[in-house]
């Protein structure tokens, strides 16, 4: 069928029925032959162009999770069924974001998402719209967003392209988040050559609401109106639909559609205020944000989650670009838009609130009593589908996976053979090299570009172990969140790597005194079509699900990002895990800084010789091999209990988790944060190098006032937690007795100069 005969004519449902033989560019839209056959099967005819547009975006990997679904199921199947985490779950996986009960009538929703590929193409806008997208997910649950975090991965710190990507990403996250008025309370910055052509920009948002304010995306109630509000729809992110529009149905129009979306944080700020006001006035039945797949996604999901059908008049969608075709309107990913379902007699009040906030709002459809999603354009029906088949019944793949042949060799390459610092002088040099290395260096040049004060409830923010937000100013109820994920560990063993990510994040939350409750995760992996990457993914899911069960912290939601690779080379498997914890009174939080001379420094946990994937092996030798540190989740749980009790009972003045870089890195950070030195003694029986640089898990440093020492050590002994007194807060140097002494000023210079020198 030649394109001309269709040019300027509308591919209506009727027309599709009459022209069964018409070829559609399903392949160009990313569908497989059998997927297209299934669509024809479902419809009992060929799809219209608009229907094809909807199916193709909704059945994409990004929207349908077709390769990951079978593995993600474990998060539900293995979810803990008892304990505080299980009891706190209010809304689980499947909604825009999970919701947990944090007590006192409050609920918290949080989720992490990726915006990796757009951020490589256009770092500023890619990262900015990443923040925008995750914030809309949180608003759509009925919550007020209260904080954001940004786990980031970049290529080598000294690579010229990193100088393009990092400053742009950071400025974009700051530019958008600061303008929205959300404090940035934490994140990660990791450099590794494996991310050179594929940086990871993950974004997390936390929101708070009262239980009764939880809203779900569904379109119940025949006759209820569907209101589209926020930005006008433009031609953003519709590469695929342009193919459809320009090649098949309207060959003459220019198919110049932007691949990059530009964010408008001011518009989003108005969306937040306007949505929350409408919620509080009880004007909303269901609500959905428009993210990937835009209106296709919003209408089909709202309709399929509800009881009835939906009828949409596409002509009523406010456009930024009047040349858009209906297919393009359905696929547009223009930012800062939301869709609400509102009872007819409340529509006027809803529109008034939008007017107050100067937000464009239009009724574009209504809920019908059928079970079809019908979309009209110029009075003709161009979509007539069962919305469930679009939104929920996409393809599911059992992709083949296989342990890569190089895995054994990698694990056999034990770091035990690497030359080590042999005396005090060399340990000193190794310490300076470590704290100055890009991954271990201070990130304040980056995080100072983020507002951490706005909203006035930030109790802890970077560089603390976790960010902490006060929820209720009367009672002091608060939540803490940390995100972690070590791709080097996961490369050595993806199953253990995922468990390690959870362990670290859990520990970081507990270090501040909060009780870990629930998990969100962003799984960043290579191509699912590569059996090796698929194996990494499967292993990581299995590991995370097992670990969540063991620790009693359910996964409440998250995001999968596949195809993170440059050519054949995949990134390190990078599961990023966010843990949310609760603290009854934020006044009891434990910060990381050594503040008072004379406080005793204890190391909790056992130190073994564990250097696989360690920061030291990377910094000193550029080495990655062996096995990652052992995970003992029972020990993590015990450690958390100790840290929480120490906070609650006022026994610890400071606590800091020990992770990459080992004890010496943690000591340096606590000293520099408080501007106080420390005198450290290597515990008997431990090799100084192993003591300082090993990355054994399940450990933390605490600073204990002398008056609390007996109480604290008794508690540790009673619970069976190894606690070694390793020194005292004192002076203005980090001194490891018998080995070396490093004046804080010198330490600070090395730790703080690296990032500004690279990017300033």
């Amino acid at each position, binding site marked *: 069928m030649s394109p001309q005969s269709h040019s300027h004519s509308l591919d209506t449902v009727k027309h599709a029925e009459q022209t069964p033989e018409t070829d559609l560019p399903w392949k160009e839209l990313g569908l497989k032959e059998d997927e297209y056959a299934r669509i024809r099967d479902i419809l009992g005819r060929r799809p219209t162009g608009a229907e094809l547009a909807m199916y193709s975006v909704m059945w994409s990997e990004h929207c349908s999770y077709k390769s990951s679904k079978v593995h993600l199921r474990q998060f539900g199947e293995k979810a803990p069924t008892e304990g505080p985490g299980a009891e706190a779950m209010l809304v689980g996986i499947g909604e825009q974001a999970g919701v947990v009960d944090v007590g006192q009538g409050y609920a918290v929703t949080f989720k992490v998402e990726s915006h990796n590929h757009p951020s490589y193409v256009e770092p500023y806008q890619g990262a900015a719209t990443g923040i925008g997208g995750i914030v809309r997910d949180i608003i759509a649950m009925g919550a007020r967003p209260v904080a954001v975090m940004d786990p980031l991965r970049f290529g080598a710190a000294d690579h010229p392209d990193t100088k393009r990507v990092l400053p742009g990403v950071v400025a974009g996250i700051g530019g958008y988040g600061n303008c929205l008025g959300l404090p940035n309370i934490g994140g990660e910055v990791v450099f590794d050559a494996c991310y050179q052509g594929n940086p990871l920009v993950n974004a997390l948002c936390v929101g708070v609401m009262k239980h009764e304010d939880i809203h779900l995306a569904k379109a119940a109630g025949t006759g209820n109106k569907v209101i589209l509000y926020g930005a006008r729809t433009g031609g953003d992110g519709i590469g695929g639909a342009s193919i459809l529009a320009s090649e098949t149905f309207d060959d003459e129009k220019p198919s110049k559609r932007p691949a990059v979306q530009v964010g408008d944080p001011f518009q989003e700020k*108005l969306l937040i205020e306007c949505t929350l006001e409408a919620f509080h006035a009880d004007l909303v039945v269901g609500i959905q944000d428009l993210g990937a797949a835009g209106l296709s996604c919003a209408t089909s999901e709202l309709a399929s989650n509800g009881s009835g059908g939906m009828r949409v008049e596409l002509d009523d969608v406010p456009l930024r670009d009047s040349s858009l075709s209906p297919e393009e309107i359905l696929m547009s990913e223009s930012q800062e838009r939301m869709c609400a379902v509102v009872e007819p007699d409340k529509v006027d009040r809803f529109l008034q609130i939008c007017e107050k906030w100067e937000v464009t709002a239009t009724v574009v459809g209504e809920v019908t009593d059928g079970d079809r999603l019908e979309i009209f354009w110029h009075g003709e029906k161009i979509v007539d589908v069962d919305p469930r088949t679009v939104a929920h019944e996409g393809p599911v793949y059992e992709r083949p996976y296989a342990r890569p042949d190089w895995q054994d060799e990698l694990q056999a390459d034990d770091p035990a053979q690497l030359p080590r610092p042999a005396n005090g002088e060399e340990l000193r040099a190794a310490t300076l090299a470590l704290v100055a290395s890009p991954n271990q260096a201070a990130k304040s040049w980056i995080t*100072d570009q983020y507002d951490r004060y706005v909203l*006035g409830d*930030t109790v802890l923010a970077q560089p603390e172990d976790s960010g902490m937000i006060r929820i209720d100013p009367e009672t002091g109820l608060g939540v803490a969140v940390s995100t972690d994920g070590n791709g080097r560990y996961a490369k050595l063993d993806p199953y253990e790597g995922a468990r390690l990510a959870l362990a670290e994040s859990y520990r970081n939350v507990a270090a501040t005194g909060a009780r870990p409750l629930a998990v969100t995760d962003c799984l960043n992996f290579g191509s699912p079509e590569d059996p090796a990457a698929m194996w990494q993914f499967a292993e990581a899911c299995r590991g995370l699900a097992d670990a969540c069960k063991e620790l009693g912290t359910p996964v409440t939601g998250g995001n999968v990002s596949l195809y993170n690779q440059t050519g054949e080379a995949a990134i390190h498997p990078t599961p990023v895990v966010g843990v949310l914890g609760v603290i009854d009174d*934020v006044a009891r939080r434990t910060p990381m800084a050594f503040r008072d001379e004379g406080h005793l420094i204890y190391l909790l946990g056992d130190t073994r010789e564990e250097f696989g994937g360690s920061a030291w092996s990377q910094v000193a030798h550029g080495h990655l091999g062996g096995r990652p540190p052992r995970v003992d989740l029972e020990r993590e749980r015990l450690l958390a209990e100790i840290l929480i009790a120490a906070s609650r009972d006022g026994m610890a003045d400071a606590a800091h988790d020990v992770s990459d870089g080992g004890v010496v890195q943690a000591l340096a950070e606590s000293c520099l944060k408080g501007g106080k030195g420390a005198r450290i003694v290597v515990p008997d029986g431990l090799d100084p190098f192993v003591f300082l640089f090993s990355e054994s898990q399940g450990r933390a440093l605490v600073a204990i006032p002398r008056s609390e020492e007996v109480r604290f050590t008794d508690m540790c002994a009673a619970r069976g937690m190894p606690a070694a007194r390793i020194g005292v807060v004192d002076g203005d140097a980090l001194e490891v007795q018998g080995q070396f002494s490093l004046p804080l000023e010198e330490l600070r210079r090395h730790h703080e100069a690296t990032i500004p020198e690279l990017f300033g």
Partner: protein
Amino acid sequence: MTTRIGVVTFPGSLDDSDARRAIRIAGAEPVALWHREKDLRKQQVDAVVLPGGFSYGDYLRCGAIARFSPIMESVVEQAKGGMPVLGICNGFQILCETHLLPGALTRNDHLHFLCRDQRLRVENDTTAWTSDYERGQEIVVPLKNGEGGYVADERTLDELEGEGRVAFRYLGGNPNGSRRDIAGITNEAGNVVGLMPHPEHAVEALTGPTTDGLGFFTSALKKLVAS
């Protein structure tokens, strides 16, 4: 009668709730004011705070669009009549755009948004918003902005210095290229004060670096109670 201090919310205001909290902690009654309000007198407020944020996204120029909000006419009129007005960050930018205060705020010289705890010296302890401080006193409050470089022509700068209208100066390094390290200024009458740093974020030990910012609000309260 309690003292009522209004806080204007423009579309894109962000630190309005913080300003209201600071007013409450200081012992006055915060009154939320919407930017479309035409007549301030109806709200019976004794003073007004223009809070921080990104009014209208700070598109065009910081404060340029907010300046034309309906409420601003009334704010200008009342300010000229002696009502205490405090502009924080975006509020300072708005005060400059309305010419209640001289000069303008430009892009930070290092071109980045910067959030840090900032040391300041109080240079004028006689304004409506600074009387609870002592001249020469050092305080630490958060600073967070992308366009905080204060500029004015030399004559204006000399005038400000000569008349003691530089209210705050940066210490410990100029964070944004402000001329003569100026962090905040006042009008001739001392009732209108604008500054880039955020005193409202330094009113509680738990969430701020210090509680040094409280003095702004207690100063206004005392003055209003006295008058």
